[in-house]
């Protein structure tokens, strides 16, 4: 199960944070800080997995942005790595060539995409097209 998802830039500013387990606000800030510290200095040659307390962080870097997932220790790391990539592809399609600013100004949309992709810490939909279509329908309602 995914415990939380973080999107951070290189300076450690959190661009998106989604928690599937209840945490206190102060704890969340601490976690965000620690995760950033963990991933930002790793050599790109190293594995994309880091142990974090009793869980694992699976992270992937896209330009200046780090996508980090915190998952259970027994979960399939490679699958989540692929999952991050799929999420990025969806964002890329949706915003056509996504960049950090898109995510800042349209953060509520990013959350909506995420809600269509992952729910309750589990994968909800694996088809890029289905999610993009669904987002299109939702946009039309506004």
């Amino acid at each position: 199960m995914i415990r939380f998802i973080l999107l951070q830039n290189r300076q450690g500013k959190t661009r998106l944070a989604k928690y599937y387990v209840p945490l206190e606000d102060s704890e969340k800030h601490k976690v965000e800080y620690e995760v950033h510290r963990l991933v930002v200095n790793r050599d790109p040659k190293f594995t994309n997995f880091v142990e974090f307390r009793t869980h694992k962080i699976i992270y992937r870097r896209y330009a200046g942005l780090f996508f980090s997932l915190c998952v259970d220790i027994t979960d399939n790391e490679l699958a989540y790595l692929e999952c991050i990539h799929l999420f990025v592809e969806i964002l890329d399609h949706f915003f056509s060539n996504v960049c950090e600013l898109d995510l800042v100004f349209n953060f509520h949309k990013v959350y909506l995409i995420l809600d269509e992709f992952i729910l309750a810490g589990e994968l909800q939909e694996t088809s890029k097209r289905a999610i993009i279509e669904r987002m299109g329908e939702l946009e039309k309602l506004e």
Partner: protein
Amino acid sequence: MIRAIRACKTAAEERTVVRKECAAIRDTINENDQDYRHRNLAKLMFIHMLGYPTHFGQMECLKLIASPGFPEKRIGYLGLMLLLDERQEVLMLVTNSLKQYPVSIRNSFCFCILAFFYSDFQTNLNHTNQYIVGLALCALGNICSAEMARDLAPEVERLLQFRDPNVRKKAALCTIRIIKKVPDLAENFINSAAGLLREKHHGVLITGVQLCTELSKVCGEALEYFRMKCTEGLVRNLKDLVNSPYSPEYDVGGITDPFLHIRLLKLLRVLGEGDADASDCMNDILAQVATKTESNKVAGNAILYECVQTIMSVEDNGGLRVLAINILGRFLSNRDNNIRYVALNMLIKAVAADAQAVQRHRATILECVKDSDASIQKRALELVYSLVNESNVKSLTKELIDYLEVSDQDFRGDLTSKICSIVAKFAPEKIWYIDQMLKVLSEAGNFVKDEVWHSVIVVISNASDLHGYTVRALYRALQTSVEQESLVRVAVWCIGEYGDILVKNVGMLDLEDPITVTESDALDVVEMTVKRHASDLTTKAMALVALLKLCSRFPSCSERIRNVIIQYKGNLLLELQQRSIEFNRIIANYQNIRSILVERMPVLDEANFVGRRDGSLPGTASTPTGPSVNLPNGVTKTSVAPLVDLLDLNSDEAPAPSSSGGDLLQDLLGVDLPSTSEQFG
């Protein structure tokens, strides 16, 4: 607003902007402005993301959720999920904001809010518009608490059969959350969950599979049910998926929906674990996945990895296991670090099942210990450690020690402790043990734990035929690695004990290079240790004892020794000062008993030491060697075993002598001189 915040150069500037915005938002909230409500909430969420307090907006979320239009509801739910988590927190925060009211009113007020919140949730779940139902499910899935789970479970179960697939999949994931919160509810969902497994829609199927996996984990009845009714269906599903033609919608790196593959394999694993029939049923498809999946992309490897995990945990099938371990072997030689990492992780688990098969990949695993990535190193080392046995200990230890010379500082601690425990556990003969330990001590003596060098000394003292060999080897090692603290300690102890053997070249083994050490050479080494600034207190104290011992081994040098010892009589460290004064008197005044006092230590009791190290002997007071005694100062002390006495820093802890000759040594360190001289003077 976002633009304004981004334009801020300093944190202080940002704070002012945020404060202004918050004030403006609060004003509009007070005016109860319908039109701007959702925009305000959107702003609030952004402010929340920056880490500012936003609890005053929580009521706004509820109002928005209650409003009829979809866009408003949508933002409301988004805010709800972001700004709040479980209901307890809503309750708590609402309570906090209501502190000014008396308790009774406060409670009823909270209750109203919650009732309102609930009924609203319920209406939304029953709404005819699938998008609004979707929103409610989404929120429920992300913030549901145990109470909510109980109340809303029937609604969610009904939604599992909703006509729109988007709602069905959301409902399935909500159910996962519900049964995690309240496992008792699991049995209500078994039938509808099994229904989801017959779906063709990928999204619904994958959520259904995840739901079944979770149900099987929390509820034994569900596990049985799925085993009986669904195993074949799942195998068929997986088969269809593996053989499905190219479909661009789900394609990842040439494989159709790897995520679904993985979830199916995971569910099969849960079903097959501990059940021979179910395992039999899936053998063919597992073999097919393991052999047919392309392994040149991450997606393919992820499937293979999951498949290996399943093979290793379902009921025994020799052929498949070999296949699985070979896949892991292939992973190990992959250039991608991620893949090697998961392979090592998996092999660690596989060692328990089939050590023989893992042994074949030993060479590759050893290569991974030398990798530059710390997490790979760590895993590989653990794996190597579990692979060591009597037959391969020599070659593996050699490899590890060779690597110790070039390894990273950070990694040395781990590596050293693993080597030490391998050597101690599997050493075929004493001379090999001593050789290896000396190598470790001279390479990484600073990383060695106290009990390790203690046990080296115990072993040395027990190997009486190797005393000469050891002390010469140590003398040589000391010439090159003075900065390794624990090597120095062991060496100093041995030179003190076996100084005469060192000088006279007793017990020369064939394989040794001859070496001539004069008495003053040996003294130089010890003296240097005492004088070196970097040596710590324990080492210096041990060196002083060694000097005392040497003065009876080398009577001709006793004047020189005394000169060295006497330099410490004004030392600021009490321990050194005390030792210096005591030893000085022994050398000067008690020549007649000196030789008995400093005679060689009795052989240290190995079994006793091992027992104490493992903590299996209850208290040392009960061991025959060290009875409880009364010290002159009247305090009853419990005595400890001889080795520790000699090495022990704190002289107060050491016991007064019982009667045997060997105990005189303890005396030297233990009680102060007057009482010693009383007894022997």
